[in-house]
């Protein structure tokens, strides 16, 4: 169980006249229960990606606590959180010269897996494994290809919590349905919790719970049935969230 308790994140805004701190996230609290599929949505620039980075440990909150099964992990390093059981798929996956797709999946799995095992993960994300397994994770891969490889590395980790930052970006429509199956399968097989940042209705549609974050605040939280109708009732989710903000 992962819990965020009154988490805030500020950065110093050098552009402002008074050199004031800018609040990216304000007093966010929620519990991610085991075996749950939770989607975070809301307008761009609302702080969703920052929240994912705080969970992975890439950024540290300026106030509040992050708890793992009741234990305070707020100051824990990225490495230790990864070992504890938190996975994080980058919105813009990192490229490496010389490191192959197989190397990355092997490192992710944390053991000496065979090429055959690694290929299985690639096939699951819709890549023809033999074409990719020995390729370098470099600039020659397209945006969609590297996103799928990123998802394969998270699958290989098999951790208790998996966080995905906009996994659908760059994935073509044809593959999109497969992507939904990937998340459903992960959820079924791992019995871990999955936290996805997404704007896609079809991903929202398979969520157990939806959180709406706008302007750094958690403005709405509830089951899919509670949240989705109100989100879809407007032109888009962003509009909805903006209106929610004004109402506060």
């Amino acid at each position, binding site marked *: 169980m992962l819990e965020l308790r009154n988490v805030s994140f500020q950065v110093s805004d050098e552009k402002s006249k008074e050199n004031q701190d800018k609040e990216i996230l304000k007093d966010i609290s929620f519990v991610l229960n085991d075996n749950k599929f939770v989607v975070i949505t809301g307008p761009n620039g609302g702080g969703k990606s920052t929240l994912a980075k705080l969970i992975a440990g890439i950024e540290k909150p300026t106030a509040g606590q992050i708890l793992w099964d009741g234990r305070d992990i707020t100051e824990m*390093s990225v*490495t230790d959180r990864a070992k504890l059981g938190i996975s994080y798929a980058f919105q813009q996956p990192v490229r*490496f*010269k*010389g*490191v192959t797709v197989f190397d990355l999946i092997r*490192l992710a799995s944390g053991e000496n897996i065979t090429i055959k095992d690694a290929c299985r993960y690639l096939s699951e994300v819709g890549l023809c494994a033999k074409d990719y397994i020995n390729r370098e994770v470099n600039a020659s891969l397209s945006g969609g290809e590297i996103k799928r490889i990123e998802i394969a590395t998270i699958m290989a980790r098999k951790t208790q919590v998996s966080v995905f930052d906009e996994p659908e970006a760059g994935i073509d429509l044809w593959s999109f349905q497969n992507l939904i199956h990937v998340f459903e399968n992960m959820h079924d097989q791992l019995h871990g919790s999955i936290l996805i940042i997404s704007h896609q209705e079809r991903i929202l549609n398979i969520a157990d719970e939806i959180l709406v974050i706008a302007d750094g605040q958690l403005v709405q939280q509830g089951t899919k049935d509670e949240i989705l109708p109100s989100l879809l009732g407007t032109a888009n989710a962003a509009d909805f969230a903006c209106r929610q903000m004004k109402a506060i």
Partner: protein
Amino acid sequence: MDAIQQQLLEAVAGLHEIPTGAYNIRANGASVERNSTDHIEIVTRKDEKGLEVHIKPGTKHESVHIPVIMSQSGLEEVVYNDFYIGDDADVTIIAGCGIHNGGSAASRHDGIHSFYVGKNAKVKYVEKHYGSGDGLGERIMNPETIVHMDENSFMEMDTVQIKGVDSTIRKTSADLKEGAKLVVMERLMTHGKQKAESHFNVSLDGEDSGANVVSRSVARDSSYQLFVSHIIGNTKCNGHTECDAIIMDEAKISAVPELTANSTEAALIHEAAIGKIAGEQITKLMTLGLTEEEAEEQIVSGFLK
């Protein structure tokens, strides 16, 4: 051969025992083992300053090993080896030099290799450099490679220097006739106070000749690297040179790509990039459970693979 020499042999040539095919093993300044085959003849040069390797035309899928190992501190030598590769041959030549210096005097091996690659011949040339020993004496290697490529020949040159060589100046020059292709992949890592220079000079003389000279290097600690690559296009040809370097700690790196086109039909490209390991690369590997040090090691070893 003693244990140190065995270890050096394994590091530079991947050899655990006497290789198959043609070979000459040079240890501490003298040839200790030699074997010629029906198609490949190894003889001592007339001036006794090195070897002549004659590969008969049409020789296919054979290999030549010519490792050099030095374990005696203070030894300095200059060796001239000439390779005559017959037309239509397809061979692999594996050279390499390992120096173990446990003493205080400098040990130095300067290998000057000349290749005469025949028409339509295909050569893969592999050269590994390795140094070991904790003596104060420097381990110095100055290899020079001179390549003459005849029509439609192909040469792939793969050089690796990862550990233990204190000072190296590598010079490679090549001239290519019609349709000849040269591919060079250099991998280099320097650490401590090491100095490494690499100079390439490739002259594309024949129509449709081509060269691709690529260097990947990592400089750590307070080491220094200089990479100079000059490609000259004298006719319709293709040339590409690339230097990609990771800089760490207090190291210094200079990359000097140079192109000269003496014909409007010459297509020449150079690329050079020097930078530290990207922070997000380390972060990504840390999210997979690696420590910062482990992440750095993976990135460097992948880069030099």
